[in-house]
């Protein structure tokens, strides 16, 4: 059990996170928030790269800073800015990271072979990484995070640069991994977490706004999401009146999915809200300062 107790993080006079309380048990957690919300800051604290300005983080009741190497031994971490050694091959690179993780070469080499296969890089295992595509690099990053079979796997925007096929493979992988470990992944891409996250955590105004299942979260705006068709010349007025969630061109008209609190108009079709709707609603313009919760 990984716990965050009343954690704040300041960078000089700027407060990036304020009084965060979180609890992680085994399962997949999606950290969903727009750019600059503090996802990376929170994750770096969980990865011991940053120290909380206030509060503490514990694992099974023990402070993770005090646990030191014992904690990091349980940790697999893919940073958002994944730097690698350009002249190394994945094989060499993973051997090095395995050494940093305290693994002997005898332990490391079967594990590396296994992981290279898992991330579909066995064919290029000996090639220098400087010739790799962004997605291939990202897969090397995922492999290094999993080298030590971590109990806590933290991934900062892991799907960036992955193609749809890899994305699906990756999601399935996380689901199977999460059975007996904590998996925390941050993203601002809703579709990455919606299908797999047991719980979604949303940060707003330096605080945790929600930590709940996708279903529960979507229910918060149930009955307020509609779809309708509007003419092109009406679109502008429509958008100024209602919060547009998505738009699609259909024959000569625009199909708009939108949110409205109040009476439905004729011609509107009520639809099931999804996580993306909530995301757009939560982080809509003019809402940065106030964290007014939507009405129950």
């Amino acid at each position, binding site marked *: 059990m990984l716990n965050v107790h009343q954690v704040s993080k300041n960078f000089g006079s700027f407060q990036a996170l304020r009084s965060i309380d979180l609890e992680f048990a085994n399962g997949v957690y999606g950290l969903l928030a727009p750019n600059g919300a503090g996802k990376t800051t929170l994750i770096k604290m969980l990865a011991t790269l940053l120290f909380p300005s206030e509060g503490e983080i514990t694992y099974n009741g023990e402070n993770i800073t005090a646990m030191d190497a014992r904690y990091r031994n349980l940790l697999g971490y893919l*940073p958002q800015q994944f*730097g690698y050694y350009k002249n190394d091959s994945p094989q060499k690179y993973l051997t090095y990271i395995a050494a940093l993780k305290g693994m002997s070469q005898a332990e490391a080499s079967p594990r590396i072979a296994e992981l290279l296969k898992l991330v579909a890089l066995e064919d290029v295992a000996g090639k220098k990484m400087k010739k790799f595509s962004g997605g291939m690099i990202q897969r090397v990053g995922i492999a290094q995070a999993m080298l030590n079979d971590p109990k806590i796997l933290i991934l900062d925007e892991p799907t960036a640069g992955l193609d749809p096929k890899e994305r699906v493979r990756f999601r399935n992988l996380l689901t199977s991994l999460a059975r007996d470990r904590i998996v925390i992944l941050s993203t601002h891409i809703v579709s990455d977490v919606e299908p797999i996250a047991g719980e979604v955590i949303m940060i707003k105004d330096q605080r945790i706004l929600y930590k709940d299942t996708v279903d529960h979260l979507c229910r918060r705006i149930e009955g307020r999401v509609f779809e309708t068709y509007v003419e092109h010349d009406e679109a502008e007025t429509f958008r100024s009146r209602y919060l547009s969630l998505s738009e699609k061109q259909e024959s000569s008209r625009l199909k708009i999915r939108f949110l409205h609190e109040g009476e439905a108009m004729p011609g509107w079709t009520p639809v099931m809200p999804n996580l993306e709707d909530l995301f757009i609603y939560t982080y809509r313009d003019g809402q940065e300062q106030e964290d007014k919760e939507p009405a129950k």
Partner: protein
Amino acid sequence: MNGLTDSFPTSRSRIPLWLRLIGYELRKSLRGPVVPALCAAFLLLNVFVMLTANAFPLRGEIKMLSGIAEKYGIRTEEPGYTQLQADYRSGMEHLNEIAVEKEGVTYEHAADFWAAQSGKAAGSTASDPTDSTDALPPDPSTVPPSHPSVLSNPTTVLPDSNPQNNGFGVPYTEEELDEFYLTAVMEWYAVTPDTEAFYRNLDVQNYAEFQIGKFGLSGSAADVIREQYAKLDERTEEIVSSGDHGALFFPGPMYKMHSLLFKTMLGFLIFESLLLTVLVTGTIAKYEFEQRTAAVVYATRRGRRTAADKLLASLSASFLLTAGLCAVTLLIFFGIYDYGGLWNAPISSYFNMELDFPYLTWTPLTVRTYLLSALVLIAVVQLIFAALSFVLSGFLKNSYYVFAGFALCYGLFVMLPSIVPRDASFWIYSMFTPFYLILNPHGLFMGAGTLLYEGKEWITLSVWSGMIGFAVLLGLKRFGRQNL
């Protein structure tokens, strides 16, 4: 180097983990073309310096001198020396026999013969021994006695400089000239001035006053200088009673071998290894931040302790590069300049004196022991520099800043003596820094100039090692708590 470290990751050998981790750090700094290219460039430069040294055209004579030292020994109080004088006298007799036969004249000294021959050779090229690059300022009170040697004669021309007519237009054969030359070389040792009187008459106290006046010292600064020169006076007595003062050496005024080896060569080596040390340490220490790999590396089990691996890797790399550069350079140097029997010649010898004040070492040091001590000192200094760069890297963003920070440090510490007041002994102690120490590698372990303090080398190195060691520990501790 690359081949060796490249094989770490794949080899199945049982290298312990901690050693592998240090190996990985070493590999980060040594891979790529920069360090090997710099080493090659430095070696080329060093060879160039050796080949263009004033002594280079004279290396044949140098070999002759070391041969004489080997054959007769270097101590004037030993029987070999009596033999040398006897051989010289018979050589002189032979010279005069032939001279009478061919020119109808005799010479008192072989040097006179060569002076006469040189005078006859119009426009003969001469090397310039008056090149004064030395640190010791002239002191009117200690003018050395004049010396009747061909070797200190600027117009001396090697006998084989022009095999067609010997350059002299005189009827001597090659063999004769070679023999007379050897006689002249032996003369340098056989007809010595009264070296003992010279050492006893050295007005060391006057020299102290000269230094005090030159630097405008007063108060306890001047007192320390006087005190040290008084000690040097006692030490001079010891040197004379040990006989080191009269031992054979390469003639200082002509060859300046002490300056060539210890000032020029070691000077180049020191600054080359310094560049490598700071470069390699900066690279290793800041590598993860420059390659953006910090987040992965410092979140592993080894985590921030990787900094300790980096420290050890920096120290080993600095030591190995310094040792390698010195070893190769000195091997080439001693291949060109044959020291032969002079390896054991005392640095404090009269013959080693290049200007007007002898090199008086605080403890008996020979060429060999001076060189070894200087190399140990250089190695320790480089380790201190590596540690200092490492500490600086904790505060600076990248390896370029580390380089600049080190340069700034260097500048400040070298300037320190010129900004502190000259009336307190702190003025002397402000020179007790590794930066200052290595500015005069030919003046180590000896009394000379203002930085003559006995044992300053080991005082400086111990104090600085202690301070830097402490700073390194603080730096590592600080890094452990730092937000990355």
